[in-house]
């Protein structure tokens, strides 16, 4: 578990003071992927750099698995850092070293023997899917491949915590997805706690379990990804959710269904934490003598299941339709009947 308590960072310039992180408190469970989202300048990078003290806190405490990071001496901190992995937006690889040599660097720093390094590097190369690229230089790699090297390097000393500062922000959408999939994979395989900073909500949606929304150095909203997605409270959060779910133009859409749907019922199915939505529709159509047409839907997958809503038209005998609706209501899907003839 990572406990952050009243953590602050104030940058002092000649004329003024800038509070980049403002008395921030947070706790992160072991083995979870925790996302921090916020707009540029919110203090996200400063926050994550405070965790391994690349930035010295002005005040407050950081504790990782019972060890007080903010209480460590310079030398103890240096040794501790060997067990906290970090990956960066711009990868920060040594371009004078090959892929293997880059991955070997943290092992050299930790004083691992030559044979051991060789073995471990090969494991890591395989883990991140870079076999065959061992002797390439970073300049010969694509962005996605560079980030894979960055991830392998961060994992070299078998850390318990991985800090990611905008790890996918310099990558195209497809490469982003493959890197995110890799992060989920190592989170599951190695039980690694991942703290991830981003300004892109879809990154949070795809891989995080919990999320904190940051604004002006503070956390303004926090919770499980599904909770935050389904009930965003603050305006910033709503805007971030819109990034993924689109604007809530439901009212307009409902009106147009009423106008265009001639027969049957229009139902709004609200999915939260639902893992079986695809099967559900075909199941209903098979089990009951009803026709189900999908009118419009917006469903996103998160680590805890699907989230979103689906509008369907259901046509059939009134009794059968009611039975079908009851059947759906037994699952975790909420049903709202919008019209019926």
């Amino acid at each position, binding site marked *: 578990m990572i406990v952050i308590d009243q953590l602050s960072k104030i940058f002092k310039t000649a004329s003024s003071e800038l509070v980049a992180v403002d008395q921030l408190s947070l706790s992160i469970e072991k083995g979870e992927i925790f996302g921090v989202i916020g707009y540029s300048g919110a203090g996200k990078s400063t926050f994550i750099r405070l965790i391994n003290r690349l930035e010295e806190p002005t005040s407050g405490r950081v504790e990782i698995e019972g060890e007080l990071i903010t209480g460590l001496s310079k030398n103890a901190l240096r040794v501790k*850092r060997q067990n906290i992995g970090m990956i960066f937006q*711009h990868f*920060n690889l*040594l371009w004078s070293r090959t892929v293997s040599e880059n991955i070997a660097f943290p092992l050299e*720093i930790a004083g691992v023997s030559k044979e051991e390094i060789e073995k471990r590097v090969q494991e890591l190369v395989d883990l991140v899917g870079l076999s065959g690229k061992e002797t390439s*230089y*970073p300049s010969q790699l694509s962005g996605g491949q560079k980030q894979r090297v960055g991830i392998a*390097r961060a994992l070299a000393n078998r850390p318990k915590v991985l800090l990611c500062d905008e790890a996918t922000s310099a990558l195209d959408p497809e490469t982003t997805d493959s890197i995110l999939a890799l992060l989920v994979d190592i989170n599951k395989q190695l039980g690694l706690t991942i703290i991830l900073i981003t300004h892109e909500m879809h990154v949070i949606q795809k891989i995080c379990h919990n999320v904190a929304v940051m604004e002006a150095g503070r956390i303004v909203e926090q919770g499980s990804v599904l909770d935050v997605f389904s009930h965003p409270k603050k305006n910033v959060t709503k805007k971030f959710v819109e990034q993924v779910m689109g604007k809530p133009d439901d009212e307009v859409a409902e009106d147009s269904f009423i106008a265009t749907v001639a027969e049957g019922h229009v139902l709004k199915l609200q999915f939260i934490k639902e893992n079986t939505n695809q099967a559900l529709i075909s199941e209903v159509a098979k089990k009951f003598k009803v026709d189900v047409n999908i009118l419009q839907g917006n469903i996103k997958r998160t680590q805890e299941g699907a989230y979103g809503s689906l509008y369907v038209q259901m046509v059939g005998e009134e009794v059968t339709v009611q039975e079908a609706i009851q059947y759906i209501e037994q699952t975790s899907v909420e049903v709202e009947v919008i019209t019926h003839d």
Partner: protein
Amino acid sequence: MTNLFPNIDWADLVVATGETLYMTLAALLGTLILGVILGLLIYLSQPGGLWENKWVHLVTAAFVNIFRAVPFIILIFLILPITIFLFGTFRGPTAALPALILGSAPFYGRLVEIALKEVDGGVIEAAKAMGAKTRTIIFKVLLRESLPALVSGLTVTAIALIGYTAVAGAIGAGGLGDYAYYYGFTRRDMDIVYICTILIVVIVFIFQAIGDAVTRKIDKR
């Protein structure tokens, strides 16, 4: 050959060329060591640097600036007492070395500093985040990542040094400059001046070619 260059003693010319090469290479070694130390000190002690230290920064920067400002020929005269104290004479190629090194190391030190500043701050930060010691950061990150720039800077410095050896020749350091001046210019035997010029240009070209080849080989950017 003898007709084209009637006044040349070929044996003397070989000795002079050897002296020029000796002065250049020996001074280059001293310049490399002193220059890297100066460049590192300036870089590391700068505000926000790994060894931030106002006084070290001030002193090293002042040293570099002062010695770069003094014209080389004046520098030779300035340190004459030190040279005589060290070697008992100011004549000959070895006695010229302190002046050559002091003349070129500050120049190279600046080039080293510039090369180090070019190293991506993110990479240094990554090394810190991995728990690297400052010594590891200096040798395995800073110097290694800036190596191509350090080599090309050394090439530029070597060529400036070849010029300095010729200037030092004017006060009897030996080498091609000395030969061209005393045996050529003062006796109006211009063929000697010409052949010395040709040889110096050839040496410069060779240094440049080697420097470029090495830089190209190690530059993986």
